[in-house]
């Protein structure tokens, strides 16, 4: 189970632009490296990250082998209503990691 760090404000005023920072532990193996025996290390990267806000997608990114290990993704959205932000990372094996955080609008 990869470790995840997410930073977003717990409270915001309606219409405010909030910054969301996410960091996930992942080797992001490019598929171009060789191991000590000269065998190719298979590619294993997170290729997709998405964030939904009360079910509506507000941010999505495709990732490629040039992204460093433990990808840090920061983005912003507009705080519209109290609810839940769901973050989903998908890797080459089709495994997904899902995290959610609540935000309260005052």
């Amino acid at each position: 189970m990869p470790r995840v760090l997410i930073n977003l404000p717990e409270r915001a005023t309606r219409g405010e632009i909030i910054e969301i920072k996410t960091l996930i532990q992942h080797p992001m193996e490019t598929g171009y490296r060789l191991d000590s025996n000269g065998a190719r290390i298979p590619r294993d990267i997170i290729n997709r990250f998405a964030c939904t806000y009360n079910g509506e997608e507000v941010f999505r990114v495709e990732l490629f082998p040039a992204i460093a290990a433990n990808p840090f993704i920061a983005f912003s959205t507009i705080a519209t209503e109290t609810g839940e932000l769901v973050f989903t990372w998908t890797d080459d094996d089709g495994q997904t990691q899902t995290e959610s955080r609540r935000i309260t609008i005052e």
Partner: protein
Amino acid sequence: MRRLFGVALALVATIAVAAEIAPEARRSGYGFASAETRVMQDDDTANPGMLWVSQGEGLWTKKAGAAGLSCRDCHGDAQASMSNVAARYPAFDAALGRPIDLEQRINLCRTEHQRAEPLTWESEDLLALTGFVAHQSRGLPIAVDDNPELNDRSTRGALRIRRAGRRRAGALSDGARPWHDDRNPGGAPLIKRGPVLFVRVVVLIGEGRDDGADLGDRVMLDL
């Protein structure tokens, strides 16, 4: 008398003697970091090191070895028991008769108290546990013991050489390992650098003259 060619080779070996720095004059490596690195370190949710700290937090409570003990079973809450511990390392271990660093201390705990296999150097688990323990000393000044044995140049030098060769991860990831080729783990280092001994070779090549004024090209190599 006229010399046609003159080649002079001078070998200057300098042993850099590390002068003690007064405690109040000591500065954290943070002060030397670039602005970007500092910003990353200041924000725990942007600092990838915190991933290992949280992993170490999980390992702290995980039972291991034949004794079936976790770190917490002996040490309790790390926040209280491990505060200031990392600041005291490296420390002199009387039983071993040599200085040990925090990773070695953790592995001694594993073999002696948990009766488990020591963790592999640079392994995720050892880095995570060390990171977690060291995190409890965050912001505290380094308070390494004034033990004369620890400060003995030979034992301190031995520790430094060992650390330099093995460590990579750290606040600035500036161990000696970056000089090794990552794709050739365990292979010969690309650059060998001794920790305290610098050898400067000055090679003077060219046509020598009677007055010795022009010695031609000069090549300097720092080894």
